């Protein structure tokens, strides 16, 4: 039974990985990676690492992928037909050759070790293997330094991401020298747009707002005031 589940999940994980590499639209690549991550989490469950499986789904397939969705939606990139198929033949050949070299090396490493002599079916597990209790205990005792360093790293990465992608400062500092991107905010709207005067008496887009010094009179009775001026 475990074998059956293993092959199903491994098949989905590999199909997801192939999809990430082969699909043209970055958005579909990302969805394919979500499939990959979820089936990988199921493989973790088969290995009885419950906490890591849940963290994989919540952190990876949830939070990180939402970040990707935002950036893919912002940058786009799905417009142009990609990229993979316009890659030069030399590059593709290089990629395939390099990847098969890596795979052969890994296969030699796996087969060439004495793992098969060790009885790799796994040790008998203690009752709390893979539970949050065990993970938490290990993180706060044996691996406290790694835990603290990881938290510092997350903080630095968050600051770095804000500094890189923030609108002011950072790498985008000379943004104003480039041709400005047109946004609705930049369009000068007539005075009184969105004010009470526009709603009540139609000033704004169609009628310009009268001069401020005549504002009181004109707003009350513009026609009669004009008539008095003539007289």
């Amino acid at each position: 039974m475990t074998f059956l589940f293993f092959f199903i999940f491994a098949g989905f994980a590999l199909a997801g990985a192939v999809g990430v590499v082969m699909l043209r639209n970055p958005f579909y690549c990302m969805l394919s990676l979500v499939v990959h991550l979820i089936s990988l989490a199921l493989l973790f469950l088969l290995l009885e690492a419950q906490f890591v499986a849940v963290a994989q789904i919540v952190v990876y397939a949830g939070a990180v992928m939402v970040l990707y969705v935002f950036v893919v939606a912002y940058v786009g990139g799905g417009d142009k037909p990609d990229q993979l198929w316009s890659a030069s033949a030399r590059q593709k050949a290089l990629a395939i050759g390099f990847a098969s070299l890596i795979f052969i090396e890994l296969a030699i490493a796996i087969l060439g070790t004495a793992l098969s002599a060790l009885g790799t079916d796994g040790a008998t597990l203690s009752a709390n293997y893979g539970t949050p209790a065990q993970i938490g205990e290990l993180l706060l005792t044996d691996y406290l330094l790694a835990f603290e360093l990881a938290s510092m790293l997350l903080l630095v990465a968050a600051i770095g991401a804000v500094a890189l992608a923030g609108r002011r400062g950072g790498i985008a500092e000379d943004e104003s020298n480039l041709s400005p991107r047109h946004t609705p905010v930049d369009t000068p709207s007539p005075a009184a747009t969105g004010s009470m005067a526009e709603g009540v008496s139609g000033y704004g887009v169609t009628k310009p707002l009268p001069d401020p010094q005549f504002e009181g009179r004109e707003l009350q009775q513009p026609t009669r005031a004009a008539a008095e001026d003539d007289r």
Partner: protein
Amino acid sequence: MSVNWYLLVSAMIFTLGAAGVIVRRNPLVILLCLELMLNAGNLALIGFSRMWGDGAGEIFAIVVMVIAACEVAIGLGIIVALYRRRLPVDVDELRELHG
């Protein structure tokens, strides 16, 4: 069941990720392929952790996930900054660091 199977799947995923990093030109997809490679490492770590019945591999896997999250945050920040400066979001056209 033997940990060798998991190691084999891990090796295949790592290989696919490495090929993707080389062949793709969109930096977003390159980041996704890097995720594939990190996940392959995670699978091997969890497999070895199960084999020894020891929790250390799981801690390593969690630390790898933290590293991956940092890498995604910084990488996506760089991509957004590229896009803001109207630079092409294509690694083959960004040759300034090429030397």
